[in-house]
């Protein structure tokens, strides 16, 4: 998680939401060509089972695969699994695997690899997957092409975890019985994906080549992929302008460069491909400190923020104004939560009724570049205008982590991923059991509401999606009226690419799901 957010740190891009067709319908795919992509920052490694930060997943998404992939509405599609069934009680998931799938070294992929990956490797090495697997009683492999997951109790989001970042399929024959972290194969990752690892020149590029034996007829279309490491944001923009790279994943260039790059010839932009992550920004309110424990003060602050302005002026109009704790791309998002819109009059009135008495409120900005700095200034000004005294506290990334972990702040910017389901990426922010100081990613605000705790626990274990929807609606209404955080924007991270590169983004994970379907139209 930490790594995810760090990567997202680098991500400060945006643009207009354009209706660029994501799936090309006009022509039939052409094979061949080289894809040049920016990778930022350089990943620490490519073994996705061990390292889960953003850039690792972007490259590893080509090398490793999971059982499923997800379209923009989170409808699961078969990847390594051909079909799947869920028992009526929601406790047994049976996957039928594709026949004839081979790892890059030629070894066949079977249900034993699935069991090894989920039950052994990821349970040990992948902290997020480990918590999901706590719901799994046992994994059975009745035959080489069948896998059965027996759950202890129904776990609503279970079918949503089979993407390459959470549940990559790892070759059992290479890793079984070894020390996973020090296995030399980590340097030459082997998966079942459409591209094979070829070469990594540290500080320069990562080279992948087409998997000639890929099990999907005709795919992948592209012969090779170069991921270019270019440490400076301005240089990355120039690399696109000069034609060195053809794909700029979300966050490759600075926000303010997006309008200029967007105007270049043969340039397409899409804000799709982030639905799964649903990056949502907000301001933590430290409820340990007076007068922030007063809900009226918090509501006043919420109504004081001109978030539409922040979206238009700082994010170039990309993204959406948040309605509450769930991003609108996350499952069970409710749009009709209590009103938290910009209303300075109401904010002033609420503040007058509240226990606020001129205290200086310390606002900690996010040290992730210019956009965030301007944003902190704008928020400070918004709050000043309803009559609060706000002081900006400067910090670097390490200082920010430290201050948030120690709860040494009054207000603090942040943003986190939601992983498509409130039970996977939202409840951690609001559960009282997750509020201990020491982590900058848990319930930092120290929001304590036993009713919310109970409802989150119950909603995660419901088998029926409609029951879950109703439960999460109640949760959202309650949290929004308690205002433990000041929700800002659902961040928009545009992927920019040459228009003759087709399908750069085709799932809810975007470029992190690999370039299986990408093809290059010859000019």
């Amino acid at each position, binding site marked *: 998680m930490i790594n995810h957010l760090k990567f997202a740190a680098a991500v400060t891009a945006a643009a207009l939401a354009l209706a660029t067709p994501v799936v090309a319908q006009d022509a039939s795919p052409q094979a061949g060509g080289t894809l040049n992509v920016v990778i930022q920052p350089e990943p620490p490694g490519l073994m996705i089972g061990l390292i889960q930060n953003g850039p690792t997943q972007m490259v590893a998404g080509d090398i490793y695969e999971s059982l499923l992939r997800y379209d923009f509405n989170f409808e699961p599609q078969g990847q390594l699994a051909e079909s799947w069934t869920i028992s009526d009680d929601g406790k047994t998931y049976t996957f039928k695997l594709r026949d004839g799938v081979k790892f890059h070294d030629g070894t066949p992929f079977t249900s034993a690899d699935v069991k090894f990956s989920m039950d052994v490797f990821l349970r040990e090495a992948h902290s997020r997957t480990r918590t999901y697997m706590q719901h799994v009683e046992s994994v059975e492999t009745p035959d080489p092409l069948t896998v059965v997951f027996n759950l202890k109790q129904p776990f609503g989001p279970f079918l949503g975890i089979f993407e390459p970042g959470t549940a990559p399929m790892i070759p059992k024959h290479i890793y079984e019985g070894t020390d996973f972290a020090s296995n030399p194969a980590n340097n030459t990752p082997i998966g079942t994906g459409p591209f094979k690892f070829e070469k990594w020149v540290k500080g320069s590029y990562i080279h992948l080549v087409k998997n000639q034996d890929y099990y999907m007829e005709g795919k992948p279309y592209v012969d090779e992929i170069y991921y270019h490491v270019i440490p400076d944001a301005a240089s990355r923009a120039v690399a696109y302008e000069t034609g060195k790279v053809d794909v700029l994943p979300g966050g490759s260039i600075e926000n*303010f460069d997006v309008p200029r790059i967007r105007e270049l010839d043969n340039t397409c932009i899409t804000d799709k491909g982030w639905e799964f992550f649903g990056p949502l920004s907000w301001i933590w309110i430290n409820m340990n400190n007076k007068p922030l424990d007063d809900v009226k003060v918090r509501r006043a602050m919420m109504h004081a923020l001109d978030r539409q302005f922040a979206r238009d*002026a700082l994010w170039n109009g990309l993204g959406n104004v948040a309605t509450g704790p769930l991003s609108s791309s996350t499952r069970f998002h409710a749009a009709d939560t209590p009103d938290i819109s910009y209303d300075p009059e109401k904010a002033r009135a609420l503040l007058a009724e509240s226990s606020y008495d001129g205290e200086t409120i310390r606002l900690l900005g996010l040290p992730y570049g*210019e956009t965030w700095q301007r944003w*902190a*200034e704008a928020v400070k000004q918004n709050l000043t*205008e309803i009559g609060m005294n706000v002081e900006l*506290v400067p910090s670097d990334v390490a200082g920010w982590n430290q201050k948030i972990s120690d709860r040494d702040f009054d207000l603090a910017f942040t943003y986190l991923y939601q992983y498509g389901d409130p039970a996977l990426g939202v409840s951690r922010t609001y559960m009282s059991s997750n509020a201990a100081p020491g982590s900058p990613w848990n319930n930092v605000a120290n929001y304590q509401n036993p009713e919310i705790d109970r409802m989150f626990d119950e909603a995660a274990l419901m088998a029926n999606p409609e029951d879950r929807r109703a439960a999460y609606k109640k949760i959202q209404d309650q949290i929004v009226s308690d205002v433990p955080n000041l929700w800002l924007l659902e961040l928009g991270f545009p992927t920019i690419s040459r228009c003759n590169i087709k399908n750069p983004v085709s799932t809810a994970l975007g470029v992190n799901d690999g370039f299986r379907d990408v093809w290059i139209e010859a000019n």
Partner: protein
Amino acid sequence: MRDFWKRFRHNRGAVIGLVILAVVIATAIAAPFLFPQSPWKMVQRPFLPPFTQEGLPLGTDALGRDVLSGLAHGAYVSLLVGLVSTIVALAIGVPVGALAGYFVGRTDDALMRFTEFFQTIPSFALAIVLLAIFQPSLVFVIIAIAIVSWPPVARLVRGEVLSLRTREFVEAASLSGLSNSQIILRHVLPNALPPIIVLASLMVAQAILLESSLSFLGLGDPNIMSWGYMIGAARTVIRTAWWLSFLPGMAILLTVLALNLIGEGLNDALNPRLTRRSE
């Protein structure tokens, strides 16, 4: 005094510098009255170019804040930082230099090695390190600038005092039974003053530049609108809104230039013989 002014006036550049500085000082003093609203207030849509909107002659920045108001309030910050940090630097440098120059020997060695210790570190790098250790607030910015700018003062004062301490009037004072501190304060330092004044005027300019550079790098006080901050915030949009960096840049340029011109004029006025010789 009249002679002084006559000689100063003789240097036309210095007079121009004085006029510019007077304008900057007047702006700084008048800023809270001319622009009673906070310079952080977002008043119009962002990126309004100059001379397109009545009431906002220099347009707005990335958040729709009034650029002219920012420049006016920034003038106050720049001058404040320049003056206060120079005074602090003088308060450190003058005593160190005077003691080293007057007592010579071991005192001199000890104080000068200490001074050199600061001089060997590039001043800007040292200022960055100091601010990284402290919380970047206005007070610490001033302290950091003072800490990196006192060594030249100490060296200058030491040199002056070294040459003065052997003069007859100092020996006479010594023979008449005055204490060391009285001699230093009443007889030596007043005679060392002219070069210190010239140096101080240049130090103010240097301090303004340092503060701007630090703010440009984001190491300034984030709660204070300064010229360096304005340039730093605008550099990212320099290709689309160049005036946002250009205007505060011009303000810094003019102010620093004015102070340098004044320094030159002061030098002429305070060291008349030196000037005539060079003519």
